[in-house]
């Protein structure tokens, strides 16, 4: 073989490799790892373990879940983001991600990720059974009579329940004394112990107390009534109709991949995800933590995340919890019109 011919051949082979790219038809060939950004046992973790179990047969490889809590989830975010965007590392996350950028924890925003939303539990406002508040209107009347005196707990600052409460403050003009707690459980305990007047968290965390009658539900953060444990809970928009314009503003748990992951891989995952959502482990997850199932992905998931990111970012910024202005990330202000 002449020297020239061999060079030509080499170039041809090289070109062929570049043009055709890696053989995506083979993806995946090795186990996939979901890095959950919170600790084991939370609903983000539970949903990812359920989907991992359910999606395995459709992808034909093992899907392993590990937890990497820390820095409000930014540790896991960075870990997945820095790794190759080859579809083998998924980022187990929730709506809590939406506040990370503006709290200076990570530089990525919704634009940088492709979301797969498994489900979420709805927000509910409850009181102790011996509370003088029989309806949500009673709470609002009392707040109007003595603004800033009625105490409320909503888990950690910046979480979805806190954001939902902030919309009540912003759109309804109601001002309560907001008391931060380290999580949903401490918030519920504070309500049960009588330290605070109103508790606003997810139905999932309150479910056993609602069933036992240890908490009385007053309103759901939604536009339609919900039936839970034999009780019909009215929507908050019955009392504060203005809130309809920010809805849906919901919890979502699931996973995400970097948006620049090869589209063929994302398509394969999307197909498997759709089927896995119908499987038994996912249903069991929904039952255990009283979660709705979404199955959102692609544009539908992106739009939801995008709209909620605006509300999260700007409300946190207004509250002084945010450290970086949402403007720096090009996040539009939803309250300006």
């Amino acid at each position: 073989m002449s020297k020239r011919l061999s060079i030509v051949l080499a170039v041809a082979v090289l070109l062929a490799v570049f043009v055709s790219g890696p053989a995506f038809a083979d993806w995946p060939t090795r186990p996939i790892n979901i890095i959950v950004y919170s600790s084991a046992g939370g609903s983000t973790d539970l949903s990812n373990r359920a989907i991992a179990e359910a999606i395995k047969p459709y992808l034909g490889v093992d899907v392993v879940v590990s937890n990497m809590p820390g820095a409000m989830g930014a540790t896991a975010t960075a870990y997945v983001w820095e790794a190759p965007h080859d579809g083998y590392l998924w980022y187990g996350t929730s709506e809590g991600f939406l506040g990370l950028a503006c709290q200076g924890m990570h530089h990525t925003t919704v634009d940088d990720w492709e979301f797969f939303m498994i489900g979420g539990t709805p927000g509910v406002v409850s009181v102790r059974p011996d509370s003088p508040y029989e309806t949500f209107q009673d709470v609002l009347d009392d707040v109007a009579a003595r603004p800033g005196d009625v105490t409320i707990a909503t888990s950690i600052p910046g979480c979805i329940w806190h954001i939902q409460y902030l919309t009540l403050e912003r759109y309804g003009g109601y001002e309560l004394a907001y008391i931060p707690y380290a999580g949903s459980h401490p918030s519920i305990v504070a309500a049960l112990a009588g330290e605070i007047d109103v508790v606003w968290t997810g139905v999932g965390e309150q479910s056993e107390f609602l069933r036992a009658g240890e908490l009385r539900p007053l309103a759901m953060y939604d536009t339609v009534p919900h039936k839970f444990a034999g009780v019909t809970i009215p929507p908050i928009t019955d009392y504060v109709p203005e809130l309809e314009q920010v809805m849906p503003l919901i919890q979502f748990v699931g996973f995400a991949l970097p948006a620049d992951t090869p589209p063929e891989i994302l398509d394969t995952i999307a197909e498997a995800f759709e089927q896995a959502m119908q499987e038994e482990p996912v249903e069991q997850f929904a039952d255990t933590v009283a979660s709705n199932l979404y199955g959102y992905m692609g544009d539908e998931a992106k739009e939801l995340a995008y709209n909620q990111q605006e509300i999260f970012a700007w409300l946190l910024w207004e509250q002084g919890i945010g450290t970086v202005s949402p403007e720096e990330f090009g996040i539009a202000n939803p309250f300006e019109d």
Partner: protein
Amino acid sequence: MEYFFSTILSIVTNPVTLAIMFLANILGIIIGALPGLTATMGIALLTGLTYGLPTEVALVVLMSLYIGAIYGGSITAILLNIPGTGSAAATALDGYPLATQGRAGFAIGITRMASFFGTLFGLVMLMTIAPQLARIALLFTSAEFALLGLFGVLISGFVAGEDLKVKGWVSGFLGMLLSTIGIDELHGFMRFTFGSPLLMIGISFVPAMIGVISIPQVLDSMKLTLPPRLKTTDSMFPKWSQFLRQLPNSLRSGIIGTGVGIIPGVGEDIGSWMSYFAARGMSKKKETFGKGSVDGVVAAETGNNAAIGGALVPLLTLSIPGSPPAAVLLGALLLHGVRPGPMILFEFPGFVQEMGGIMFVASMVLFICGIFVARFFIKVLDTPPRILMPIIAVLSVMGAYAINLRIFDVYVMILLGLMFFLLLKMHYPVAPFVLGIILGPMIDANLRRTFMVHRSFVPILTRPVSLVLLVTIVLLVLFQFEAFRRLLRQRSKA
């Protein structure tokens, strides 16, 4: 009670389950014994690994590990004066002096019995009066949490300070001060971070604990010309009569441990300190405490293991974890479709009894496994320090790194270790510092939350539990003043 016995029967008649239980328990003891690996971490790791297993088997694994880990901390506390877990720090106070007196075998044997007894005591409480006990958890609001945390730091300073009590307290406050570094829990405000993203996450207690405890020892061992060899000739099997003599002490510690375990988020660490403090207060031989008192190790170890049963009480009946490991356990239960809470007796009938059955067998297993693991660990005493200490130094670096996989934590460990190398020379004890770091955030956040809720300090004085805690704290401090004691003596004479 039928579920309780049927669970026990189904475990002991199934060789596979029983074998898994032994393995998990041994793993737990090792995790507990190694500084840097904690019960919480072990349960979290195994929660993921046992997801695919049937619920009962998964719980067998997790509970065996939990019980083993809380005991395991005492082994290294006694042998090396390096408590493997925060809850074993009180055990080291008397355990290590016992070891230096050549009674390491006895100390390890008696703590195993104390852990066994403590676990069983907590279990009995859980099985009999759990729903009623759970209400104790609701007596605690922010004011009580803050005072209880402060009380914990103060008593550890009180009992650990061999010199002036105030030195123990200074050490405790130093820990509390360092724990304020990072993002504040209430407002997300950056405190003492100087714009550094590393400081934002704050000082984790595991690297700090490893640093202040092991670095000074490693450094001290370097200057010794003749390495002290500990004799381990005595038996690891204490006589039953020796244990029976401890019965009043064990019962008291069991009650305290369980009670503290019930209080949400407090758990094993304070359980052992409170029991130790009470044992010291009731003892006729106060002067032996800190110098190798058997009462001391028994109290501390019964206290921290009894806290397990205590922590399960609010976990199962209120869905509120009583301690950090219990919080991870809550996740594991949810993972297996079990929803703990006030409805558990109706929705999952027999589940509490099943847990009780598992705990019962697990504590029996601990009684046996403890012997094997301790036999292995006790060999370290025969290892000359010039070989042992470098190994400890390496393990410390690894342990500090492993907890968050951050090299920054290793620097924190070394820096705090050097700091305490000097402070120890001035007789500032280590244990209160560690407890200060652990409890600092609880004290800080709850104290400020009390003011946020009530906008005054008056509720601290009007709520019964907080008033009792406050009065106890004030008395504890006042008693350090000779003038106050003299005043009291004159009063009693007159």
